[in-house]
């Protein structure tokens, strides 16, 4: 396996023209994912996590007229380095669902209700691996076994509505794994599931990653899941990465005030650290500014307890502050 990262995203920006002006949903986002590793993209609603993943997969609707800039260099199985944002549509179509796979948050709306799950899994291998119908169905059954769906031979011929939420998410994973992808983008894959089912799905994703060596871009708002299932983390706020770090140092010594606040306001954090429960929880005041009227300087400045005068003047750059650690804050100086 090459030492080069599977995916290198640099200065990715996605903007949407609206009646009220240009909305910059993703601005200047850079991160990388090593082969066999998991990078988590963490942030709250509207932080640009999902737009980042849809931009990378080139799945934004044409009607959105998205303006995209930056680059996303992907290492293919054949050993070529391609820019996902520049590839012709046809070449992209050959990668998508094949080397690049995606699972979505809501398994009910992302499966087709009028086809059996077997047919849906078979479709992608017939397309990408040119298998005939019966070989493709046999492959689909193997995929259902891989994701530990009991009675797979029978489930193969069932429709999505006949399955529980956890089973549907397993089918989504089977579908994504069908062509043996090298990069899996998982957009909030366990958010719609109960905790005991979430635990099953996370264990399954780990096992598949260990077996296949695929890289995972894990998009989530759940810091508990990030703590145990990511190698590297990029924290997003208002469309920008505000902090990047390997998972342990990020939780041990968060550098950006937003990351610090996010961790401090978790009710389970004190207990996890063996401390008594605090009388009041830390709360980040206010709310995210409208993307149509961003503050002049740092996007987090209006909510930041540590803000100083210079914060209102310009958006601080993402600077390297220590080995493999970056933060977008004027209070953190470059190493």
């Amino acid at each position: 396996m090459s030492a080069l990262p599977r995916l290198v995203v640099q200065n990715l920006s996605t903007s949407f023209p609206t009646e009220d002006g240009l909305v910059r949903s993703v601005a200047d986002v850079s991160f990388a994912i090593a082969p066999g590793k998991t990078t988590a993209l963490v942030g709250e609603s509207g932080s640009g996590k999902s737009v980042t993943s849809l931009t990378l997969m080139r799945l934004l609707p044409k009607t959105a007229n998205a303006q995209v800039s930056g680059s996303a260099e992907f290492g293919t199985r054949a050993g070529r380095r391609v820019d996902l944002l520049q590839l012709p549509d046809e070449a992209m179509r050959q990668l998508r669902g094949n080397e690049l796979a995606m699972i979505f948050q809501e398994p009910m709306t992302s499966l087709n209700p009028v086809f059996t799950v077997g047919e849906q899994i078979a479709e992608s291998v017939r397309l990408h691996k040119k298998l005939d119908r019966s070989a493709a169905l046999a492959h689909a059954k193997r995929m259902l076994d891989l994701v530990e769906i009991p009675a797979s031979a029978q489930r193969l011929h069932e429709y999505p509505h006949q399955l529980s939420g956890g089973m549907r998410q397993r089918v989504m994973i089977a579908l994504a794994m069908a062509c043996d992808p090298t990069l899996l983008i998982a957009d909030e894959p366990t958010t719609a599931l109960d905790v005991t089912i979430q635990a099953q799905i996370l264990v399954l994703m780990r096992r598949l990653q260990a077996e296949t060596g695929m890289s995972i871009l894990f998009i989530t708002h759940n810091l508990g899941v990030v703590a145990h299932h990511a190698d590297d983390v990029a924290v997003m706020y208002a469309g920008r990465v505000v902090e990047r770090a390997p998972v342990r140092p990020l939780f041990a010594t968060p550098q950006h005030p937003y990351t610090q606040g996010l961790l401090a306001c978790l009710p389970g954090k004190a207990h996890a650290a063996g401390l008594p429960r605090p009388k009041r929880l830390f709360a980040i005041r206010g709310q995210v500014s409208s993307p149509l009227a961003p503050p002049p300087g740092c996007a987090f400045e209006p909510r930041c307890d540590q803000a100083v005068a210079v914060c209102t003047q310009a958006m601080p750059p993402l600077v390297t502050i220590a080995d493999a650690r970056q933060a977008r804050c004027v209070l953190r100086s470059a190493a």
Partner: protein
Amino acid sequence: MSTPLIEVRHLKKYFGHSTRPVRAVDDVSFAIQPGETLGLVGESGSGKSTIGRTVLRLIERTEGQVLYRGDDLASLSAERMRKMRSKLQIIFQDPYASLNPKMRISAILDEALATHGLHPGHAARAKRIAELLETVGLRAEHASRFPHEFSGGQRQRIGVARALAVEPEFIVADEPLSALDVSIQSQVINLLADLRERLSLTMLFISHDLDVVEYLCDRVVVLYLGKVMEVASTTELFARPLHPYTQALLAASPKPDPLIATVHVPLKGDIPSPIAPPSGCVFRTRCPHAIDACAQAVPTLDEVATGHQVACIRKELFMMKVAA
């Protein structure tokens, strides 16, 4: 112990066909003392929300009793129940769906006041509405706005203001945080904790988020498939979970710290259908400790320590483990 504010006795709520009903709530009993916050936890389909709504008679129970200060709510006439509702309020999960988009905030709050004939007169109402908005951390001038002009966290504050408008004693909070972002969640948690203290509210707090329950609740009832698995004080439950389901639930919720190793007790399979629940203990089909005897009889909810009740025939096994 004083008289409980709310006492639920052998509550059952079955939906649908009488020969094969959906047993959403199946023989649940608990009591809530004045000033106490009781947490109701469990996964989807465990009957949490149905209990909350049945307690308030938003849906009628199938069997059992709900006593408010010793009076059975189900026996009240519609007229007396309507009066009683000013004491019993609810905060809903989805702040987008629970506010009428065509009504201004002032009208939403005014409706609650008018229904119960509180603060008669235009000026008195307006004053009370302004006061309510300030109580929940909004401003008086927000009264003239519509719900769509607010963020999710602010809408949830309006939901809280509406529940508080009629000066209730008891509030059912049905997953009031799950639609909110983490940074906004902690604002609303603090608001609920402050108001509870200031107004000495009694709460039934329904949630699937164990960290939030641990933070806000005094005692916890753990539900699975419409039945109570375990009841204990929050400290006791989190330190010494005795039911295998509670143990699995605690282990499955990932702690926000990469240094804490997760002890995985992965439960096999899904929650069974409440139309045909398993015989005996309803949890046995997913329980890692199930034995043949678990299928024989429904385990009783037994007190194992003061205020700590467990419904499991093998509880001695876990009590020994915890003691060791």
